[in-house]
């Protein structure tokens, strides 16, 4: 309670020391653009084949070779970018602050088409072979033809006026798209017409104030052999069977980060910084790591036998998937980390807030 500080805030937990069991090896690292800005936008990178696509908040999109980090091409849209990078068969999509979806050619970064939407798109545009679906901040899904950008259909879900910043990002399968909304609903729509197939209420809002009633689904639905796992803010972690949309099990949880899975567990990076593992079948809580309280942990990624999580100070924490004890730690970016990470062939790719792109391995 400092004399000048005035406002007393909730303090993030200090770093605990531990016996490192694995050693972090950095394959390569390079600096990409001017970073992700402070507007709390989760500008996540994306990997497609041998190429990593990253971006910065001022509108520059980079394609970098996955092996050595060398830049393949760079396009400058010269307008602020809001959503992360979406990748398709031969396409790279980003969304701008003025509400446009810009589709670039994956080979050379040339602009293929541009489509004006009615609101901001804060999460990566998802694509399958022929349609690209953007999820807007005002609760709309808009599907566009992947080659021409022509609007095919749009689905509107009524969301409350006060929501959490950021949206989930839909799974676009061959004939159905599954998306989680800020009203705590998980919805499946037909790709051909946008008509609603089914809708499940993941969490029911309680409490009086708008604050207590926030139940956004900002995590991306996770599909593992026939079951969709989804978590909402101030609500529940739920497993839904993809075939008949029945809720298999649910556990109390609160997270706005995407999920990860490994060793039969589902890993949740809770809102208060706790990392928890739930058994995929029985939903029992296998272990819970509480040392990262209030450190604004990012979405978890599974790397080998560990599960990795970044935090607001830019530290990358590796925990054993078996019981959650710390295995290694490495500081990626002093500006902190927000975006989602990516793992391909046991290599973890991380884009820090200052624009530092790192590829690293554990051994």
């Amino acid at each position, binding site marked *: *309670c400092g004399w000048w500080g*005035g*406002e*007393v*805030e*909730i303090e993030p937990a200090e770093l605990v020391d531990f016996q490192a069991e694995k050693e972090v090896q950095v394959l390569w690292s390079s600096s990409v653009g001017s970073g992700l800005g*402070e*507007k*709390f936008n989760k500008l996540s990178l994306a990997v497609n084949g041998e190429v990593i696509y990253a971006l910065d908040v001022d509108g520059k999109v980079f394609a970098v070779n996955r092996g050595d980090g060398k830049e393949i091409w760079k396009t400058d849209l010269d307008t602020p970018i809001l959503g992360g990078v979406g990748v398709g068969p031969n396409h790279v999509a980003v969304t701008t*602050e*003025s*509400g446009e979806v810009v589709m670039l050619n994956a080979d050379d970064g040339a602009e293929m088409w541009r489509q*004006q*939407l*009615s*609101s*901001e798109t804060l999460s990566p545009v998802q694509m399958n072979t022929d349609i690209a679906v953007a999820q807007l*901040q*005002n609760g709309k899904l808009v599907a566009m033809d992947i080659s021409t950008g022509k609007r095919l259909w749009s689905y509107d879900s009524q*969301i409350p*006026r*006060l*929501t*959490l*910043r*950021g949206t989930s990002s839909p799974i676009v399968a061959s004939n159905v798209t599954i998306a989680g909304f800020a009203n705590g609903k998980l919805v499946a729509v037909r790709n051909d017409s946008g008509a609603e197939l089914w809708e499940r209420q993941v969490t029911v809002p309680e409490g*009086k*104030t*708008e*604050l207590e009633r*926030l139940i956004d689904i900002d995590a991306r639905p996770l599909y593992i052999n026939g079951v969709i796992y989804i978590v909402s*803010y101030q609500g529940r972690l739920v497993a839904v069977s993809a075939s008949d949309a029945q809720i298999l099990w649910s556990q109390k949880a609160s997270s*706005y980060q995407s999920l990860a899975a490994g060793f039969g567990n589902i890993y949740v990076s809770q*809102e208060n910084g706790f990392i928890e593992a739930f058994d995929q079948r029985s939903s029992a809580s296998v272990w819970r790591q509480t040392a990262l309280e209030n450190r*604004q942990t990012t979405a978890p990624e599974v790397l080998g036998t560990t599960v990795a999580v970044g935090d607001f100070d830019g530290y990358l924490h590796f925990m054993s998937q078996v019981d959650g004890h710390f295995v290694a730690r490495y500081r990626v970016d002093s500006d902190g980390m927000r975006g989602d990470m990516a793992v391909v062939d046991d290599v973890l790719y991380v884009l820090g807030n200052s624009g530092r792109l790192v590829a690293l391995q554990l051994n």
Partner: protein
Amino acid sequence: QSFTVEDVRLEGLQRVEPGLVLRNLDIDSGQSVDQSEIAEATRRVFRTGYFDDIRIARDGNVLIVRVQERPAVSLIRLEGNKVLEDDALLEGLKQNGLREGDVFKRATLEKIRQDLLRMYAGQGRYGAAIEAEVEPLSENRVALNIDIKEGKVATIQHVNIVGNTVFSDEELKDEFSLKLPGFWDFFSDSDKYAREKLAGDLERLRSYYLDRGYINFTIDSSQVSLSPDKKHVFITVSVTEGEKFSVGDVTVAGDLVVDEQELLDAITVAKGATFSRREMTESQDALVRKLGDKGYLFANVSPVPKINDDNTVNLQFFIAPGKQTYVRRIAIKGNTKTADVVARRSISQMEGGLVSSAAIERSKQRIAQTGYFKDVNVETAPVPGTDDQVDLEYSVVEDNTGNFSASVGFSQTSGAILNLSVEQDNFLGSGNSVGFGITQSDTITEYKFSYVEPYYTVDGVSRGYNIYSRETHYDEENVSNYSTDTLGAGVNFGYPMDDYQRLNFGFNFEGIKVKPSNDVSQEVTDYIDLEGDSFNIFNVQLSWSDNHLNRKIFPTEGYSQSASIEIGVPGSDLSYHKEQYKGRIYYPLSEDSEGLIGSLRGRLAFAGKLGDNEYPFFKNYYSGGLSSVRGFDSNSLGPRDSKDDPFGGNVAIDMSAELIFPVPFIKDSSSMRTLLFADAGNVFLTECPVGSSGCDNGIKLDELRYTAGFGFSWLTPIGPISIALSKALNAKDTDDERFFEFALGRTF
């Protein structure tokens, strides 16, 4: 089995009133009760929530009710709250039914946490965290210790408008009151998110488009989102602009009780112009006012836009006049010192007469123009039981300047003033202005009596007279050194030419004796040789004034101008003519009434000789000082006589531009005014006065002096005080500059 209760005895009561228990028990002596009725009574008492345990026993025919009171909260201790003070929080809890001395009920703890969290959420502090626990005290009382972490206020991180093509984001965001944290955001709270402010901003955004022709503009969605750490707020507004429309033909329909052309003239919306909702509403108000002037106070005008497909919109104003309304009674409130008639005579709306909204408003302005009141408001209340009669109530706030200004004053020009005069416009609240007294200072000794009755007749014909004897030592007032003894008497009267203009006439007699002091300047001695040193002058003054200011004390709007001519009538010892024009205009620069006001002021004066005698130098104009060009010693500008003392001139020009801004840091600043000013002015001599060895005569505009500075006026109970801090911009080394000027008895 039941038994008749002879008496009821209560045991274990400490704080709660016996009456409360008995009322809920609801068993009175002589009533026969059985087991189930007693159980029911116990449940009723228990439901009051004051008791932990209730046991009913029977002693013969006496019912014994033994209660165990729940602990009372004797103290609520708050820890860690800085932004919301203790009593603000306690007050909030009290409103939700929890205060010291209350009984501590089970759900109280959780309720406290929720109430406090809600209070902080209301302040935009979504990140607050609160823990409350109970600490038992002696005598069945408890203390509640509440530990608060207030967290930061959620600031606006990002305002984004999507879908706007015609106007840029920056242009639109200027209209918002919610701003991104600016460099001085610690001062304003415009970056703190509040839902009502957002609603207001969206309305301003809509008006911005509707006022520029985009009649089909819609706001599709306005999304407010919060960062997970609850410190930042993001606002996204998606809009559809639609086409730009211009005005088609404008018509008036419905029960036109006033001839159509007069109504059409009141409408400012022109055919072919870009459609603007603001203009449409202004025209609507103009029509309502026009109908109000003709007695239809409750008239209703509704503009009906009809959209054509050629991007034009036809506007039809539909008129529903309602009944002609009359004023039954006019009440005047708040005048504890001023007589009712003094305010009532300025009201042109008559009791028992047809209502005219223009007259009601104009009367409010006329009362304010008397200068006796600091603030005037009018309210119209329909008379119950009738649909065509209203009562008016003019509420005034009296100017608190005291009746007497027997004061010891000080001003640069005349040093310490010992002033035992009663200078009172609204003498004893009679509305007449009376002045008598003695003023003694090193430049002026004056005995005077003046009396003016502004409303000698009921239509505002004013009449008054004054008698004075004054000895002015100009040498003290750093003007050429001579002094004058004047004995004068005069009569004046005036009358209104219309609602705003007045004509005033004055007939005065002056006996002036000029006394040159020892080293007097050549001009004075030569003048006296030529014309002698004592004169009896009979002069006639005719002045015209046109006053549209909204009030006399610290006007904020409107203009006023006056032109006057004074003729020393040929045949008296000295004849001359003096003409003067003065003008002032105030113009509010920002919509809200408390904002900036610009004002311009100007004086143009000319004088010359009439008949055979030379123009009397002691009737010269002077410039410099608080009333003309601030920043120069008073009367020091203009030509100098042979003794290098200011001689004045027969032509005077001064102008001033002022920027009036709200008084910072002071809440009730209705009796203060702060302004920045730029003055310019000087006096000139068209031809050299007799006896001067050569003077730079003629009106030379490059001789005008410019100054700029800060002015402050304050209406204190003992009289108005004015202060000016000014800097001359093009002073010559011979000028006497004056950085700080102060005077009691004048306001800017």
